[in-house]
């Protein structure tokens, strides 16, 4: 499907802390095609948000990409200067965040915040930017867009604010949209609307979308491909069908089992026991071993490499060693 938009190769993102350099993302690689949606899934603290912030170059001041490459349309953007990166942000790569209630500036009008990227990147005049802004608000389904331009964020509901955020993110027709849990803070009914909106706009603009989420329901709704992360590492990657129909990594299976199934009255909700290891835990072998009921001696001594289960399906689990052999034969 399509040409490659983004390629992330073996990135390691580290944070400088009082305990020394802590890697939050460990040697993660993935790629994204134009017009494709990749969901990055995992529990809180697994490094999924940091992975996406590494791509757009918005890491907190104590974080940096220690090694690896981020290629956008073939260009290594992780080598760009802050000024070059600034020109890309909001223009070619946009991001929307989890909390629409706090992600908009409370003392600036919607119009101001919407005009800003248009005037910066597209060099529009204030009047042109206002016109384009009204169009964008219409496009994301906001009623009375002319009136909204002069309103402040506190005068809008959470769903409306997230629509405004989407309008801002899409204002300069970006090639890549990163959405970090865009629906987590919203009502369920609004969630579906926002997801539909992102999906429709993705098709209109032929964008690549990286959706960061912990909600398997969202994944099923929007994903083309899914990447599962655990403790800073990619543990499984595949198409949405592969991940839902034949998950391989015990962690992915655990994630799927912890989503309630309303169709099956006998379904027992199953939590994954234990919790994420701390960032500075030096773990020999598989990082999931302590919470895995299938863990063997091998898992405790050797880190599992990536095994190909099909051309699109990868899992880092020793259980899949044979799976790869099967696929290759």
């Amino acid at each position, binding site marked *: 499907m399509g040409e490659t938009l983004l390629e992330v190769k073996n990135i390691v993102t580290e944070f400088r802390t009082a305990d020394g350099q802590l890697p939050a993302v460990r040697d993660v690689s993935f790629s994204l095609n134009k017009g494709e949606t990749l969901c990055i899934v995992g529990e809180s603290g697994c490094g999924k948000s940091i992975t996406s912030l590494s791509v757009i170059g918005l890491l907190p001041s104590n974080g940096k990409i220690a090694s690896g490459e981020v290629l956008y349309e073939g260009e290594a953007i992780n080598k760009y200067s802050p000024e070059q990166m600034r020109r890309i942000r909001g223009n070619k790569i946009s991001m929307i*965040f989890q909390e629409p209630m706090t992600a908009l500036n*409370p003392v*600036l009008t919607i119009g101001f915040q919407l005009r800003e990227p248009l005037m910066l990147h597209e060099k529009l005049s204030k009047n042109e930017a206002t016109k384009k802004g009204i169009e964008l608000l219409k496009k994301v389904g906001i009623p009375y867009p002319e009136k909204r331009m002069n309103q402040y964020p506190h005068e809008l509901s959470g769903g409306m604010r997230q629509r405004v955020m989407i309008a801002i993110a899409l204002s300069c027709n970006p090639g890549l949209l990163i959405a970090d849990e865009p629906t987590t803070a919203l009502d369920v009914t609004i969630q579906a609307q926002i997801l539909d909106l992102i999906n429709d706009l993705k098709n209109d603009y032929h964008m690549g979308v990286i959706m960061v989420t912990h909600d398997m329901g969202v994944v099923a709704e929007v994903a083309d491909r899914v990447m599962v992360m655990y403790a800073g590492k990619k543990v499984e990657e595949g198409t949405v069908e592969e991940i839902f129909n034949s998950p391989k990594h015990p962690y992915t299976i655990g994630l799927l089992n912890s989503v309630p199934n309303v169709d099956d009255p006998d379904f027992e909700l199953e939590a994954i026991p234990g919790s994420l290891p701390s960032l500075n835990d030096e773990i020999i072998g598989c990082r999931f071993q302590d919470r895995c009921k299938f863990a063997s001696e091998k898992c405790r001594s050797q880190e599992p490499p990536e095994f190909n289960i099909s051309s699109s399906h990868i899992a880092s689990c020793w259980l899949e060693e044979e799976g790869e052999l099967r696929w290759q034969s």
Partner: protein
Amino acid sequence: MIGMIIRRFFQLIFLLFGISFLVFSSMYLAPGDPASMIGGPTASESDIEAIRENLGLNEPFLTQYASYVGGLVQGDLGYSYQTRQSVSEAIAVRLPNTLKLAIASMIVAIIIGILAGLISALKHNSWLDVGSTTFALAGISIPNFWMGAVLILVFAVNLQWLPVGGMSSPWYTIEGMKELILPAITLGTGAAAMIARMTRSSMLEVIRADYVRTARAKGVKESSVIWIHTLKNAMIPVLTVIGVNFGSLLGGTIITEKVFAINGVGRLMIDAIAARDFPMVQGSVLLVATLFVLVNLIVDIVYTYVDPRIKYQ
């Protein structure tokens, strides 16, 4: 908004009654007899009694207070026991000097305070930050009178760059400005320090806010991130500090005017207290209270321009 302003004025009236009562009763209870101060050490007992009768000091407390308030509602602040001069006139003559001093100090405080706080926050944990926080701590800790004396010693006596004291030239002349520099620094440093600390902590909080990250994600230039997206939000708590500090600054004029021999309301007040000149003390305290309330009203009005979420019904 207009309704809020009108309501505030009504509140001010009640507040002034309360303050006048407090000041009146504390002066009444304070040791020292104005009549004997006026009569002087040579006056006979009957002379003093006559003065007392003349000033109405023999009346019961409430009668005295009632007659004072009676004058007050007619805009009459009474006459000085000492000079028989009208209190309003005495204040009116000195008010411009005090206002000049207070406004100049506030300008010094706001400029130094906000700049120091900004530098501190933007260069967080650098030596600039350490320097500016140390300055803030020193500014809060150093008493006015000492600072004034040291500044006079260094810049007026030794270097002879600036006048020792007094305030006689208009503020817009070079001479007038020179006269203002040392007193304004003396009085403004404390407030500058408070403003610097508040600006620093408020900036540090806002710069981590989600909407600042959004601004960066939009590709906004770093300078606009600071000046447009951060500063306006960070100024909201700083405004409060400015308003509150204006009050202590007005109190500080008493000492500063004394140190720099400025003929202002503060000095008038302290001399009046020493002479048990009750009407003069009353009048100046009421004036200072009114100024304080007015400044805070202005701060409240400015809020609505800085923060659209604040609306007054």
